Each structure stands twice: as C-alpha cells, then as structure tokens.
C-alpha cells in the first residue's frame, strides 16, 4: 500500500441556477472586472488515502463522489490524477 493524494472539484450542475456564482459575478463587475462572464462557486476536496496504485485510488474517489461528496442531482465533479503523498 502507498499513500496517495487526490483532489476533487465539485461544481454546480451546468444549466442549474447558481445564485452564489451570480452574486460573486455581480460583485466582480462592481469592482470593475467588467469582462467577467460567469462565475461558479463549488467545493475543493482533498482526499489522502492508502491504495495499491493510482488507478485504484482514483476509482475509489470516483465512488466516493457518487455516494457522498457530490449530489448527483445538482452537482458535477472532476477528479485530478492521484499523486504520491
């Protein structure tokens, strides 16, 4: 077993109303960042886990996203490649 570190990005499902992203976008416009088109606010989760190899660790984290870390109704997730920790 080796130690791996995997980062997960969880964002509101595309097309769903994201009021938090809209509020941040409006604030950025107020600050003068007029070029900002869209903002989406999500979560960034870092998992440190023991695993036989990187692939197995990534598969496990994908399962974790489906079962707990992301809500399949309202959120999308992306997993970064596992790195040795």
């Amino acid at each position, binding site marked *: 077993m080796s130690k791996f570190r995997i980062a997960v990005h969880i964002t509101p499902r595309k097309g*769903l*109303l994201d*009021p*938090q992203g809209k509020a941040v976008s409006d604030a950025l416009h107020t600050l003068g960042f007029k070029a900002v088109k869209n903002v989406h606010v999500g979560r960034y989760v870092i998992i440190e886990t023991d695993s036989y190899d990187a692939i197995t660790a990534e598969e496990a984290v994908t399962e974790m996203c489906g079962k*707990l870390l992301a809500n399949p*109704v*309202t959120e999308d997730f992306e997993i970064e490649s596992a790195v040795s920790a």
Partner: protein
Amino acid sequence: MKFGIVTFPGSNCDYDAYHAVTEILGEEAVYLWHKDHDLQASDVIILPGGFSYGDYLRAGAIARFSPIMQEVAAHAKSGGPVIGICNGFQIACEAGLLPGALMRNSHLQFVSAQVRVRVENSGTLFTNLYETHEILRVPVAHGEGRYVASSEVLDGLENDARVIFRYADAKGNINADANPNGSERNIAGIINEGGNVLGMMPHPERACSPLVGSSDGVRLFESILARVAA
C-alpha cells in the same frame, strides 16, 4: 399511535415536533438518538428541522449516514409513514427516500417567515383532513430550500399528484412573488411513490396553536391518525 422523532447532532425542531405530537395531538412520542438502531416500535417517524452535522458538505448529506437512517429507510420501504420537515426533507432527499434536492435559496438569504401554501392533493395519508386548494399558513426557516429536480422528475411528480404543497399567495395564486426560495414550480412539499414519505420545507409542527399565529399544521398530523383509524 407512537411517533418517533429522530434527534441528529444539530437538530433543533425535535422538541417542536414532540410538543405538537404530545401536547396538541395527545399521542405518544419518543426521541430516537441518531446513533441507535432501534425505532422503539414507532408507527410514524419524524425527521425534524435543524442543522444536522452543521450542514457540512451539503444540508442533510452526512445525517443520511447516521446509523438510525438504516432503520428509517427500512420503515419507509415497508410502507411506514415518514415525515421529513425542513432539514428532514433535505435528509430524505439525500437518502433517496424522495427525488430531487434542496439548494441554496435563489436570493441567497436565509428566510424566516410565515408563508402560505396551497394543498394540491387532499387524498394523501398526510392531507386527508384538508380541502384541495385550501390555503394554509405555515412558517418557513431555511437557507437551502429551493427544490430542484430534472424536468422529467418534476413532470412525473405532477402527473402522479405527488406535489402536495405549493407556495401560494392569499388568493391561492401560484406565482414567483409567493415563492420564498425560488423552488421549481413553487414546490413546498412532495410525497414518494408509495405515498408514505412526505418531505416539506415549511414547518407544520410550528403551526399548531393560535398562540404562534396558526393552527393549520394540526390537521396534517391528525390526517395520519384519521387514515390509520379508518
């Protein structure tokens, strides 16, 4: 009839539910600790409002894995009545007992207010003492109460008459002004396919006495008694 009220770490409406059941209905109620695996022979399970597990990750996401939820899910599967109120509705959705999810209110603010809901289906276990399209006054208190689901799921709920309560104005109109959180189609409460699991954001247990501004919630609990007695 015995009501089991689940107390999660962070539940704060469990006593309101206990009060409504014991003092207003005159029925038996017990608190069920979230770490237990025993429903104590309760006939009806209430998942109360609050902020279980501090709303960490997502509202209701962690509570769903509390040990007692295995027994609650089994109770629901065998047709036993379950009422999820506010945070309890969020937990029921996260647990897959009800479809859809509750997201951050569209205006981003926590809303604590007396609102009106229209009874959409008075033929259910939970609404048989109301009239269809009757307007009820009940309070809401939530930051994440915007009901969302895919359009297929929403159409399915509508076609099966499983949308039980909708936010409405005093005349019963369903419009954006009456919608306190931006819920799809003004949905305030739904039931599952079996008709035995109810989830709703408004608090019927806090609308059980003229003293607090409304008694419209009493008949929701009485409906269960009436149906079971019949």
